[in-house]
């Protein structure tokens, strides 16, 4: 028989049952994402833009048809194309919101000093960036999906008035809807990388919008063939290719959906790789 003398647990020797884990960091980033008003607003705007644009687009196309062409005689793939165009139209504007949000997710931490709390809790740093990217990607994808599906419903209702319809189970319908949501999610992660590198809200947003809006215009203005050849490889042009390509395979004048996706992934990869290197190396 042994008798143990009761001993007060010394805080310095007390065993802790919990420890730092990637699952925990993911949960932490999810709490952070959902506990800021700016995030909620950004996502609501993405959905609102998507529904609003679908409504405007489908109403205007449907009224054109009432004026003359006989819609009921239209081939099925023509009907699909009309409804899909209207359903993903919001992505053109939603990508700007997703880009701004991606920058703010990290630049907000730098401007408020929160990053020091984050990196004290996760001193190896890269898991924090990875968790942010994953949480942002998944949330933005789901929000984009809801937005595009909502837009599909709005468009279907409007087009039903002129006997134009498309079924959601057709690959030609659901693939662009998925592709549009995927592109929004990838843009937000690209912007997260840029925001991490620049550590400033204004600078990060300017850089992201510059890449998405300004770069295509600048290349178009350069009177050289190489500049023109580069345009399909820009983030926004390739992104467009993911959800508007007529074909999955490359054609003479377009990259096709798969190659477009690869180009966008390359942009995202470069941005996140740069962010990882700088985050690891710099003082916080």
């Amino acid at each position, binding site marked *: 028989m042994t008798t143990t003398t009761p001993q007060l647990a*010394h*805080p*310095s*020797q*007390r065993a*802790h049952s*919990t*420890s*730092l*884990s990637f*699952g*925990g*960091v993911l*949960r*932490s*980033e999810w*709490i*952070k994402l959902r*506990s*800021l*008003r*700016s995030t909620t607003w950004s996502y609501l705007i993405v959905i609102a833009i998507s529904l609003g644009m679908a409504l405007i687009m489908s109403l205007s196309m449907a009224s054109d048809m009432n004026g003359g062409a006989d819609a009921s005689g239209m081939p099925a793939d023509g009907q699909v194309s009309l409804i899909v165009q209207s359903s993903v139209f919001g992505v053109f504007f939603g990508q700007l919101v997703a880009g701004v949000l991606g920058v703010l997710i990290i630049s*907000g*931490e730098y401007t*408020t*000093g*929160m*990053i*020091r*709390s984050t*990196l*004290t*809790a*996760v*001193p*190896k740093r890269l898991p924090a960036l990875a968790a942010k990217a994953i949480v942002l990607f998944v949330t933005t994808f789901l929000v984009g999906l809801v937005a595009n599906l909502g837009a599909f419903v709005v468009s279907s209702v409007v087009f039903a008035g002129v006997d134009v319809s498309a079924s959601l189970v057709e690959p030609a319908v659901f693939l662009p809807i998925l592709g549009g949501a995927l592109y929004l999610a990838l843009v937000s992660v690209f912007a997260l990388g840029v925001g991490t590198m620049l550590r400033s809200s204004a600078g990060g947003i300017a850089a992201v919008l510059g890449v998405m809006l300004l770069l295509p215009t600048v290349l178009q203005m350069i009177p050289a063939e190489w500049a023109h050849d580069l345009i399909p490889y820009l983030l926004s042009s390739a992104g467009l290719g993911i959800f508007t390509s007529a074909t999955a395979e490359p054609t003479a004048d377009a990259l096709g959906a798969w190659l477009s996706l690869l180009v966008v992934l390359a942009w995202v990869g470069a941005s996140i790789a740069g962010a990882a290197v700088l985050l690891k190396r710099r*003082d*916080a």
Partner: protein
Amino acid sequence: MITAEGLVKRYGAKTAVNDISFTVRPGQVTGFLGPNGAGKSTTMRMIVGLDRPTGGSVTVNGKPYAAHRAPLHEVGALLDAKAVHTGRTAYNHLLAMAATHGIGASRVREVIEMTGLESVARKRVGGFSLGMGQRLGIAAAMLGDPSTLILDEPVNGLDPEGVLWVRQFVRHLASEGRTIFLSSHLMSEMALTADHLIVLGRGEIIADAPVADIIAGGTRPRVLVRSPHASQLADLLAAPDVAVIRSEAGVLEVTGVPASGIGDLAAQNGLAIHELTPLSASLEDAYMALTADAVEYRTEAVR
């Protein structure tokens, strides 16, 4: 336990921390004292890996901070009361920090209660006063129930009641056997809170002694002794009411023995003395003198 060895931090041409070595021991409050810009915050940031040392190393409980499996259980740090996103509520901030280590909501409520933040926990941090921000920082530091606490200017911005609370809180934590490393630029605050002091000036350690010795040195007549046999002399002088502080190699600050007594003792033992200066200063004066010396020392070293 925090151990720094030859720690150096340079920002371009500016040296913020210049080759410092020290140990912060458990079971007591160690004060980190120095004027603004002395390198206190930089040193604390290097301990938790926010800044990368230019040279040397620092470990907590035997390992670099980032190498621990559960860093928040090893070290709680209040480095900057503003290290919180202003758009988030205090509760959600703590919940997010806790989640990284799988710490639950019940512990979050505990630290909120511990720091007296119940009434504002659901408010967004942007509207917090400096004092509430400090309490939130301390709450975050306590989340992991860490054995070591690093607090950078924790009483900054607190009202007198808050200052008293922090003082009693850190004394209590130290009495539980924790390691407490507390910085301040206020000597008076340190005299009341700390057991041991590390004084930093211009990035170098200019004193590392029990606070009682430094207070004794500051409030009673002291004698500065410069001798190549400083350690032998210190042994000879040792007595219950005599305090000997070694601020740098070959220099002693002796309290409790007049200059004549030290001179006689050295002569009897055949020890050479290069300087024997009676000093008399208040607590603040002693601190100012220590830091001023450091400045002069630097200027000479550059030449």
